[in-house]
């Protein structure tokens, strides 16, 4: 890639950031400044905040459409510099669609298991009764998360079209995969900051609010961004990333129904500490995925350039 091409890619990327951050931060700040409560008394996200989050999740997709219109990059559905909206199950790619559903289940389950291992007394066999009436629903929950993750993935798709479908390919071209996942993850985390400030991700009652929340969100999005980027590059489509994102947002864990927060004591009562413990398995999985991906790409570098491009963006 020559200097002029790099300059163009950087300019397009900056336009995308200006549009996306402009739309979503405009909405988020308007809501925060309106003084309406973001959280309900029980700590759940309020109905008004919910619609702001839903519309906010669609803004990266709107950002892509507006940017591509301004930069005249076109609206190709598949291939290089496209919207990456194609679905191709051939050459074993369907495996990544299945993995997209299973990986969030794995790391949320392991994350909750970590909390139970650190503090076994918080495991309460009867606690699920406060959340659901029927124990069958608890065991069925991951399957429900998979189905709703696929069918109600519009929010996830909205974000992934922007972050993985537009930002990441450009960042990878500009600075290579390892740097791109870190920079892209931090930018994605920064995009969440107004919501983190309002209490969407961790509430507002934690040590170092809101700055530790900002840092935690940026780290979380770096690790999650690694998984999402690798799965997007392997399939050449943003759909599996959208499914993964949507399933992740439903936190498809069975163990969570058996963790009684009232029985948690000590350092784990702080939302930030419990979040760090919960996120360790996801971070480990992300690092493993990135390492395997980079090693495989290293091997492919011996292939002709044209073939390598096809594997990256087909």
């Amino acid at each position, binding site marked *: 890639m020559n200097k002029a091409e790099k300059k163009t890619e950087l300019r397009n990327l900056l336009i995308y950031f200006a549009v996306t951050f402009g739309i979503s931060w405009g909405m988020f700040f308007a809501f925060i400044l309106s003084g309406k409560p973001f959280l309900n008394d029980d700590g759940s996200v309020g*109905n008004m905040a919910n619609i702001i989050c839903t519309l906010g999740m669609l803004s990266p997709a709107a950002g892509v459409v507006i940017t591509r219109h301004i930069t005249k990059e076109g609206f190709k559905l598949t291939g290089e510099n496209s919207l990456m909206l194609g679905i191709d199950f051939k050459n074993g790619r369907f495996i990544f669609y299945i993995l997209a559903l299973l990986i969030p289940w794995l790391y949320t389950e392991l994350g909750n298991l970590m909390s139970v291992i650190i503090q076994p007394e918080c495991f309460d066999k009867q606690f699920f009764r406060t959340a659901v009436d029927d124990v*069958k629903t608890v065991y069925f929950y991951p399957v429900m998360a998979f189905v709703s993750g696929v069918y*109600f993935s519009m929010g996830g798709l909205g974000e992934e079209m922007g972050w993985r479908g537009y930002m990441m390919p450009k960042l990878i071209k500009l600075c290579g995969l390892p740097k791109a996942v870190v920079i892209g993850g931090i930018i994605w985390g920064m995009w969440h900051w107004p919501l983190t400030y309002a209490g969407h991700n961790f509430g507002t009652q934690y040590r170092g609010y809101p700055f530790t929340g900002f840092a935690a969100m940026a780290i979380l999005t770096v690790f999650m961004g690694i998984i999402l980027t690798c799965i997007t590059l392997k399939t050449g489509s943003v759909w599996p990333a959208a499914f993964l994102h949507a399933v992740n947002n439903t936190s498809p864990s069975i163990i969570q129904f058996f963790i009684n927060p009232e029985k948690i004591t000590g350092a784990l009562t702080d939302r930030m500490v419990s979040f760090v413990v919960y996120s360790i398995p996801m971070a480990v999985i992300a690092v493993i995925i990135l390492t395997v991906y980079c090693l495989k790409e290293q091997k492919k570098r011996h292939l002709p350039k044209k073939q390598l491009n096809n594997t990256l963006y087909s």
Partner: protein
Amino acid sequence: MGGLLYKDFLSVKGKKISLIILVLTFVFLVLRLLLPGGDIDAADAATQTDAGLYDFFLWTLPAMFVFCSLGLPSIWTKSLISNDEKSKIKAFTKALPFGKNTYIASKYIFIAVSVYILMSVSLIWCEIYNCNAGKNQITDLIEALKSFLIVFASASIVIAAVELPFFITLGTGKAQMIKTAILEFLFLLVVAGLFFGDLEKLEKIDLLVFVEWYKTHTFTVNLWAVLSPVISTLIYFLSFKLTYVLNKNREVGIDE
């Protein structure tokens, strides 16, 4: 494939419909923000307080939107094929850079994507309703509607799975006749039911009873929400395979 999908999008006046849906969604959002609901039993207080009246009036909009939007794909199955017949697309498929399989797949993908988008917009409408609604039975009704959105979308997919093989294989003329005959038969069944059936059962239908049932049968509701999309996707895939087999060795007639 992308080109075929874009052609289908234009042939059902997709740009116009998208714009209308966007404007309607924005208007509904503004209406909901201007007319807040209240924490009351809206069913009783609908005529007594403004908040109850607003909730009572506004809940009909997302409900109507859900049923109208998920009915659209059934209308589109006909217009997709009839527009192709008018422009003789099928006659030129052998000369175009895609196979018959791709042509048939594009119709199925277009309808599936439409249902996905319309269901997602329906969900946004339900969220918009909830964003300024009070805690009352009508809000519970909207929650129930949200839970059953997947089931409604699955029904829409199954209807398309039944219609598409007829429209693609037989053409719009014959397929429309069959569709009309089936609808008339169903209409006759309803009329027969009204004349000879037990009408007292209809009097007992109460949406609030349904809401109570929904609240106490979470497992059944969730089971339906999981099974219906799986079954409908399977039926849809089988329908696609059947249409492909039926049209595989079929020569295109001069009149098509």
